[in-house]
């Protein structure tokens, strides 16, 4: 390795990515009160620099290599075994990119915020820093710190700048999430000390913990503690009740981030920690998680269908879509896991875009009731087109990105859990029902409400917000290979570990599940 490249590898790019938004938040707070017009440009600039750094990360990421890259490790406190350990693999790389990509858009979509502007943009930037930290932390205590601290800015974003029932929604969001994470903290401490018994010193380091042999019973308890926390975040049915309230009451950008990135933290946690640290418990609990995932898919879709409020509809569609992600993860096949990860990105893009669109129409009419609209396509053709495009992507129409993810998830889960896959495919049909029906009621036919007649179509800023998402939706739909190539080794590594530590065999196409019998045949 030549010197400049080595220097590039030693550069603490991950720390920089996490710190940049935090610095931006401080800068926004430090702006004088009179210069309110500078707040958005400064915040946007910092989030764009973060995106640039994330792109640099993508460019220098070595594809096809399992394990973590860009690792940074500084011992913090020897007696506890805490170290500031960061690193990314293909999965977290995609999550970092998604986060860095959605935040500038969310910030630019926040022009309707007029009260306490500095506080708002600072909160958003601190939130970004916290989320990025969650995705790159490889030390469980550091991970937990980021996981928990990011609740505070989100709480304020919902609670101060949210809708009518914002206080209730913010409190519910905070308490639900904190309940899960409190038990996770106990789990993390117990895990570190169990490791201490074996290694002779406690450690919170994820990579070191992989080498610790936990007992079967301990794995179940710890799996439960972690899965409860992540399950609330995802949200897995029946832990989802905070989600509709939080989504509906949050300001537009809050909903975009909530749906686009925050929910992914839960799924990411399941993949990163539950699957690898507690493989035996994972394999044994697959039926439970798969049932909950399928219930979530169907239930979310059915409830979305009957919503009268378009924002609530999109919120419930998240429950359904995240069900696919969880099903893909616990299919424990290469295709299912890859599909789950890709679907996380897809859902972030499409649902983020849907919330943006809902926010745009809400800013014009100040109502979210589907019944208050009708025939919008005639006055707002651009808006209608964008809504239809994103809806179709969300439904999973080829060649848009949603198809790739859902197809892989169904394929992967059909291999290991055929019955569940069949049931889950109902969710795809239902997605078409609720989204297209909503489209029909809102956009087609004659204009039913006079107030809608004078609505302006999308302006330049709004098109600029949507264009990057639309481009990515198309790109990932037509050519998902770059993303899949980066995810595949990480997924394979996780599955290899499960195969190694349990007697589970990852099923594959063309190979009968029951090998010995197949060989016995002539």
């Amino acid at each position, binding site marked *: 390795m030549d010197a400049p490249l080595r220097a590039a590898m030693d550069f603490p790019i991950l720390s920089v990515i996490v710190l940049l938004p935090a610095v931006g938040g401080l800068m926004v707070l430090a702006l004088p009160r009179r210069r309110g017009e500078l707040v958005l440009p400064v915040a946007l600039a910092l989030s764009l620099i973060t995106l640039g750094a994330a792109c640099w990360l993508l460019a220098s990421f070595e594809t096809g290599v399992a394990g973590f890259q860009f690792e940074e490790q500084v011992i913090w*406190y020897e007696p506890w075994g805490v170290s500031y350990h960061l690193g990314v693999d293909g999965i977290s790389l995609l999550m970092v990119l998604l986060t860095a990509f959605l935040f500038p858009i969310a910030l630019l979509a926040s022009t309707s915020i007029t009260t306490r502007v500095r506080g708002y943009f600072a909160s958003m930037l601190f939130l970004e820093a916290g989320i990025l930290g969650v995705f790159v932390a490889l030390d469980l205590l550091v991970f937990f*710190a*980021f996981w928990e*601290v990011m609740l*505070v800015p989100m709480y304020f974003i919902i609670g101060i700048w949210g809708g009518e029932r914002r206080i209730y929604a913010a409190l519910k969001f*905070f308490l639900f999430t904190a*309940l899960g994470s*409190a*038990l996770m903290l*106990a789990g993390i401490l117990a895990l570190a000390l169990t490791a201490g018994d074996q290694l002779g010193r406690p450690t919170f380091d994820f990579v070191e913990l992989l080498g610790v042999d936990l007992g079967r019973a301990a794995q179940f308890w710890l799996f439960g503690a972690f899965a409860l926390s992540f399950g609330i975040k995802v949200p897995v049915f029946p832990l989802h009740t905070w989600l509709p309230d939080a989504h509906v009451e949050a300001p537009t950008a809050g909903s975009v981030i909530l749906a686009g990135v925050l929910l992914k933290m839960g799924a990411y946690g399941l993949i990163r920690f539950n699957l690898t640290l507690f493989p035996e418990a994972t394999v044994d609990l697959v039926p439970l998680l798969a049932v909950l995932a399928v219930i979530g898919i169907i239930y979310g879709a059915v409830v979305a269908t009957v919503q009268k409020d378009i924002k609530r509809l999109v919120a419930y569609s998240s429950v359904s879509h995240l069900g696919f992600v969880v099903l893909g993860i616990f299919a424990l096949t290469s295709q299912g896991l890859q599909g789950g990860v890709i679907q996380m990105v897809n859902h972030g893009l499409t649902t983020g875009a849907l919330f943006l669109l809902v926010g745009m129409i809400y800013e014009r009419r100040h109502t979210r009731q589907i019944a208050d609209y009708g025939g919008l396509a005639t006055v707002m053709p651009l808006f209608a087109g964008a809504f239809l495009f994103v809806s179709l992507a969300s439904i999973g129409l080829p060649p848009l990105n949603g198809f790739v993810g859902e197809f892989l998830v169904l394929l992967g889960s059909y291999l290991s859990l055929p019955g569940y896959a069949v049931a889950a495919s109902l969710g795809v049909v239902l997605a078409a029902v609720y989204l297209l029906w909503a489209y029909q009621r809102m956009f087609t036919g004659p204009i039913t409400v006079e107030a809608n007649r004078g609505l302006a179509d999308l302006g330049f800023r709004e098109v600029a917000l949507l264009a990057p998402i639309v481009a990515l939706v198309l790109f990932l739909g037509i050519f998902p290979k770059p993303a899949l190539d980066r995810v595949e080794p990480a997924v394979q590594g996780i599955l290899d570990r499960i195969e190694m530590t349990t007697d589970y065999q990852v099923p594959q196409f063309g190979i009968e599940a029951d090998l010995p019998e197949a060989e016995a045949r002539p």
Partner: protein
Amino acid sequence: MNGSLTFLSVAPEIALAAAVVLLLLVEVTFKPRAWAWAVVAGAGLAAGTALSAWQWVAHRGADTGTFWNGMIAVDGFAALAGLLVFPLAGLGLMSAWRLAASQGRRGAEFIALVLLAAAGAHLMAAAADFIMLFIGLEVFSLSLYVLAGFTRERVDADEASLKYFLLGAFASAVFLYGVALVFAATGSTTFYGDGGIADYLAGTVIFRPGVLLAGLALLLVGLAFKVSAAPFHVWAPDVYQGAPGGVTGFLAAAAKVAGFAALARVLTAVLGARADDWVPAVAVLAAASVVVGTLLAIVQDDVKRLLAYSSVAHAGFILTALVAGRGGVGDMWFYLATYAVQVLGAFTVAAAVSGDRAGRSPLAHWAGLGRRAPWLAAAMTLMLLAMAGIPLTAGFAGKVAVFRAAIDAGYLWLVIVAVLATVAGLFFYLRVIVAMYLASPEEGASLPASPAVGWGARFVLAVAAAATLVFGIAPWPLLEVLRDALPL
């Protein structure tokens, strides 16, 4: 152990006592302005801190010992208690300065009482004999009783003071009875040395430990009262709510520090050999405190009362560290030190919001504080988040420290109870934050005049915020240091 150290062993107490005498004499002789009080008090506290720092440097770990026939211990534990208590008293005085200055000539007495309380608190940590411990306890407690009712202008302040005094005296009596029983069982009131209690318990098999155990239980009850651990907490809400706003912070912080210092030494060092007897009791006390404190805090509508119940829960969290015995003492110190600063900061804000002399601080006073006084609201938010244990605040590091110690000692159930209480606790901390930022003041509600913050209070809040953030982001140096703060 050289003879020249004899007086130096109690030098911090001497410095404080000298400052008290000087203050009162100067006051009656010259009737000086208020700044002269500040000079004398500051000099006394600075001398106490410096002498404790010297003890810390010279006599932590190695070269420790007892003096005055085994009455006073010089060790890392006592030195650290001084390094904590004296600056805390200084901060408490700054926080209460407007209150003290508004008392006219009685202000000097107020300051003298704070200094006496600090001296008593340090004596409790440094005592190596139950008699000495009791003297420290009484000096400390009596000062606080008077401080709680100092303004004498409201009935509820008098009530608070009287209630504190009666219940406190009762607890002292219980404690003393415990001392008597332990003396009956072991033949000594001295902690260390030949024939000391620790020595006796380590070397003797007691076949009928009834008397000893009864004494141990009474000691535990007496000290649990001082730190307001459930079910011996009933005085705390009334006292905190009744006491004048300016001094409540010092009351709350100092009581915790002094009580836990005494508790930690008595349990881990003196009765260390009987750990199997007291650890389960402490675990039950801890669980009861976190649950009772949290649940009762949820239903409060007065911020000072809410903080009082939260302090009961925090007593439980701190007790959680003690189930690990000697290994948990460093973690206890960390939690105690950071919590003391937080609670002082929180009550300082309460005093600014509802008034230095006011007892009550109803939640309605806090509505819209985020707009009226953004800095105060921000400081309060930070203190509340720290008490709630949100990462990047010292409260989180403290919680991790005590939970880790308890899990290490095999008390996972206690930690699970504690983390669940932590979540429930978020509910009431968030209620205050909701009032400050998310709610707007009710139409026509009579708010106290725009919050007035003196320079002393500003300094206290700046220090509290800085300490909370610094030890939240990088708690390791302090944790490392506190590992040496062990009793003899």
